[in-house]
């Protein structure tokens, strides 16, 4: 692995249940962090639902994604961004989310990143 640290932005737009997108996005984030990359996560649209507390396993019968969200700080992934518009659209307040998040301007985040992966 090269010694360069790249700024990797992972955008999560799907709900945590009903498909494997969120789990596969978070796996990518964890592997990237394990390889020493600087990881930011941007939750948009239904992706914000992945940050609600007490996630259960969904219809796919796989482990829920809540446990993966919980371990993010242990991987030094502390930049979790959620757009105000997504919260408003879902009728949620930032304080209802299971972890600390900051507001986001997607265009700025994308411009600051070396690599953007969209799930």
């Amino acid at each position, binding site marked *: *692995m090269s010694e360069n640290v790249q700024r990797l932005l992972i955008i999560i737009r799907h709900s945590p249940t009903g498909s494997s997108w969120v789990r*596969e996005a978070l*796996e990518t984030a964890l592997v990237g962090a394990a*390889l020493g990359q600087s990881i930011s996560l941007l939750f948009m649209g239904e992706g914000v639902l992945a940050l609600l507390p007490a996630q259960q396993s969904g219809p796919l019968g796989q482990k829920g994604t809540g446990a993966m969200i919980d371990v993010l700080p242990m991987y030094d992934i502390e930049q979790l961004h959620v757009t105000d518009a997504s919260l408003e659209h879902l009728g949620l307040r930032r304080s209802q989310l299971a972890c600390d998040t900051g507001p986001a301007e997607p265009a700025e985040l994308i411009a600051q990143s070396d690599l953007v992966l*969209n799930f």
Partner: protein
Amino acid sequence: MHEEMPLPMNYALLVMGAPYSQQAAHSALRFAMALPARGHRVGTVFFYHDGVYNASRLMTPPRDEPHLLERWCELHDQQQTQLLVCVASGLRRGLLDQREAQRHEREAHTLEAPFELTGLGQLIEAGLTHDRLLTFAP
């Protein structure tokens, strides 16, 4: 006057759409095949999510439809493209090479060279080592 050629670039593609059911894989192949005309190439294709089905060696489309497995192999032959399949996504969906098939005591393998089972780290590595990484998702 000759048209000026752009700087040659080495691309990585992330393919997350299943063959035949989504456009993603078809678009990725068309993009990849068009690159050499402009002096570029695809160094790596990483198959993730439902994209792993592109590697099924048993795929048998009707004769008058594009054979995506053969197209990927052509790409490998023409541009020496690495065809990397996420092992975690692959195993769940039944994409096993001979070694994994033996290890899990399956009666057949469904993936073979030039496709390779690899970890997600190779996707991150591809992002670092290629000039561009483009996602083709459903």
